[in-house]
């Protein structure tokens, strides 16, 4: 297999580009309000609010077996035991296809709004799970300092106007993406667990919240968090208990989590970011025992979710985005698995998603020294597009630079 060393600048060059209208206004430094795209402006006028459903595929999803380069002999040569045959996959075009597990459920394909952004990564990829996750979650090379990128997005959109239910993580492990000292995320695992028992009201749990703890001190943070919990257990319980989905959800973890997301959207609690995590993508060994199962769980849960929210007025601006900290090595390893690789696809879906393929074509003919394709779309361009086209805020402050805007978000009909 030919391994070429390409000048990274060639790839970076493509990332510096527009967001013209917004970025220029944002740079002007005067008091003029930032001009926002028409779609986002309309939303502020009372239409359905934007809602990002952010799914983290933890462990490094194998992009090559998700968005399959099914006609490329390099793919088949690199993966004698793991490559999907042409007959198994679901072609998008003559080059790429969705893996056999995606769009599998009856009716899901008819929704027509599953899309993918190709070759998403960043320069000098870090192949450590943790460092790369930090980079994706903060959109900063330095990793865990300051707010996560969602935190910055919410600060850009709402300033200091907070709401306990604005950013919600459904599941046990709060991702750093949501970190913000202003717009603190709400986290819960189940509506039963998320209830105070034994006669506790919001009384003492937030003691000293009136400012008597030193600002920024641990006690002050604890009091804030407790107050947020006390303020939101009821709204979460009501949203989830009363919810009647229009389609059944699969009895897996993600099915439950996406059902909860649908319930929160329908209840109109004001959630603009709903986060969840699907773990287990670190498929170094016997990948075919796990990876198809994970994608199947994703597909089944997501299909139900899309059918459930489809047509609901509150869900018109819902965008689902599924990402992973990196893709996996093109060549399979001796354990019939794959090692940590470089770029991977970002999956998009939902009423606000523009189906089809986005981003620049990823190629297998040119690999880096580890044997991975080079990234063609900077993940910050993906974030920037979400900031600009879904939330109507200047992307520069959110992603820390200017990147070529993409077109994967459907404009709101006039």
């Amino acid at each position, binding site marked *: 297999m030919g391994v070429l060393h390409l000048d990274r600048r060639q790839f970076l060059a493509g990332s510096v580009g527009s967001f013209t209208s917004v970025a220029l206004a944002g740079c002007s430094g005067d008091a003029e309000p930032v001009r926002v795209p028409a779609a986002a402006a309309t939303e502020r006028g009372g239409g359905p609010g934007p809602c990002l459903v952010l799914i983290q595929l933890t462990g490094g999803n194998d992009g090559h077996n998700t968005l399959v380069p099914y006609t490329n002999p390099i793919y088949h040569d690199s993966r004698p035991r793991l490559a999907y045959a042409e007959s198994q996959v679901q072609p998008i075009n003559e080059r790429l296809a969705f893996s056999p597990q995606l769009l599998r459920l009856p009716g899901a394909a008819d929704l027509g709004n599953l899309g993918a952004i190709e070759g998403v990564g960043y320069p000098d990829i870090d192949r450590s799970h943790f460092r790369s996750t930090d980079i994706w979650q903060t959109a900063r090379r330095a990793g865990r300092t300051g707010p996560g990128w969602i935190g910055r997005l919410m600060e850009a959109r709402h300033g200091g106007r907070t709401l306990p239910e604005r950013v919600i993580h459904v599941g046990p492990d709060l991702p750093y993406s949501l970190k913000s000292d202003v717009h603190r995320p709400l986290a819960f695992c189940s509506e039963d667990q998320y209830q105070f028992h034994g006669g506790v009201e919001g*009384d003492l749990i937030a003691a000293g919240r009136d400012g008597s703890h030193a600002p920024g001190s641990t006690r002050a943070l604890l009091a804030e968090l407790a107050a947020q919990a006390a303020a939101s257990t009821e709204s979460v319980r009501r949203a989830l208990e009363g919810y009647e989905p229009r389609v059944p959800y699969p009895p897996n973890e993600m099915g439950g989590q996406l059902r909860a997301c649908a319930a929160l959207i329908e209840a109109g609690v004001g959630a603009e970011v709903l986060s969840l995590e699907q773990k287990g993508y670190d498929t170094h060994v016997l990948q075919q025992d796990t990876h198809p199962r994970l994608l199947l769980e994703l597909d089944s849960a997501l299909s139900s979710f899309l059918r459930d929210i489809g047509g609901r007025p509150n869900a018109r601006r819902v965008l689902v985005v599924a990402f992973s900290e990196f893709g996996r090595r093109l060549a399979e390893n001796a354990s019939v*698995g794959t090692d940590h690789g470089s770029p991977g696809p970002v999956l998009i879906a939902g009423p606000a998603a523009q189906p089809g393929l986005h981003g620049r074509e990823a190629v297998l003919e040119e690999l880096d020294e580890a044997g991975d394709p080079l990234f063609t779309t900077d993940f910050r361009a993906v974030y920037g597009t979400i900031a600009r086209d879904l939330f109507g805020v200047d992307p520069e402050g959110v992603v820390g630079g200017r990147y070529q805007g993409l077109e994967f978000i459907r404009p709101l009909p006039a």
Partner: protein
Amino acid sequence: MEDFRADWGSRACRLVPGFVRPFLRKLAFAMMSSIVRSLGSVLISSLASFSFAQESDPSGPAEFGPAELGPLEFGAREAEHLLNRAGFGAAPEEIAHAVEVGLEGSIEALFSPDSQALPRFVSERVYIDGKDLKVHLAREGIPPEEATEGQLRRKWDELTLIDRHQLSGYTRLWIDRMVRGEDPLRDRMALFWHGHFATSMKRVQNSHDLIRQQQMLRDGAFGPFEALVLGVAKSPAMLEYLGNRANRREHPNENFARELMELFTLSPGNYTELDVREAARAMTGYTIVEGEFAFLKELHDSETKQVLGVEDDLDGLELIKLILAQEACPRFIAAELLRWFEGVDAEVDRVEAYAAILRASAFDFEPFLRSLFVDPHFYSEAVVGQRVAGPFDYAVGSVRRFGVDLPASAIETAGRVMGMRLFYPETVKGWEDGMEWMTTSTVVARANFAGVLSGQLPVIEFVRSARAPLHASGSMMSMGAGSSGGADEDEVESALLEAWVCTYGEDLTPSDEVSTEELLGRLLAVEPTPAERAALEAWSAAERESFSGSAQEWAGRLAHRVLLLPSAHLH
């Protein structure tokens, strides 16, 4: 336990005071100036009668006794801090005892625990693979060749359940030990290593291997580090978890080699991607055969590798020795341990000083810990009471301070809903710490656990809601959650009442202001703020009016509220 290894130094050094002397002696050879800077003025002044010129002479006499430590005060504050951080919290009586025996006595107690009375957990291999299923079925009189798919399935489900119970058994024994506090420092270190060399039941699916690895880490909790790294490299649990069992010459699997350097020994920035790939080659052939570690030469790549600037035909053992010899290794481990015990990142100078101790002692952790526990910085305002208690600090600590006898299973569940499910770390990185423990979800979980402790919430209801999946509300309600009664409830309530009567006597009255103070003192590891105290008093004044229960019941409600205060999460 043997205090020091033979190569550590002459026995004479261990006379009085056992821990300071060898520590200083080794420093003479190492980073003397930086430790002097870092240890701060208090310890330095305490040793003033004993010049540093003298310390640089390893054979010099050092006749200074415990009194020399005078300037490092060891009152209730310091004693409680030591017992919080080196163990899992302490009741007022234990703190008083520690003050009585002094700093040196307290440290000695940590290193030579009174009792190892709890039996060693003996685990069994439940199964390895499909072959075992047939062996098990044969015991039931079903010949292997006649076993049906359904029978194999049933046996597999059965064994899986047994396997989980075995792991639970070990977990609960461990929790029980934390609560009893018989060997607290060892269990504290075992918890550190549990997160440092993380392996999860989720992927390993074999309790025997996980238990064996954890027993190895607990037995070797005080080092040497090399034995731990080697033990982990050969542990079937780790070989399975990071997939090194399938790492072979033709296509190396990088996973273990990467985490070995990134998380176990060096930390990022101290090796390259090339080092990872080459180290993976050195680790080829380290695998599992019949459930046990094996090195298979035919799978091993014996060609030359280039790792960390060395070019050699390294095998796994040589690789680990090479990695441990890197400057970055003691530095990383020292920083990790300092953070574990102090709760904040240590200054570079102190990391260097403690790395020097590790280097000088060949990664023996006892001198390291003995130094830390007499380090004035460890007792400084920046450290004492400043750490957000982890799930077991909060759960076990509260149980110990309260004196309630709670089933270990409830504490196990509490740990899980507070974010630390033992033997199920979410990633190989283990767990985060500090404020990372706290989310709206874990705030609720802690409040409910406090309710259990104080008799306000039946254990059964706590455990049930903790296990409730999403959207189970309907069925939960029909199961009668919220109704009173149940054996667990009675059990805890009576234990609670007993503890109360023991502590406060029968005549506790609801209006007794002292009891609020005592409660605060007993249940909190830190001093509450005036605002918290005022909030508690306001609540108490408003509630007492309408409260008609017994004194003990009132105290239970009050205790619940104390454990909800922001300060209850600090230690």
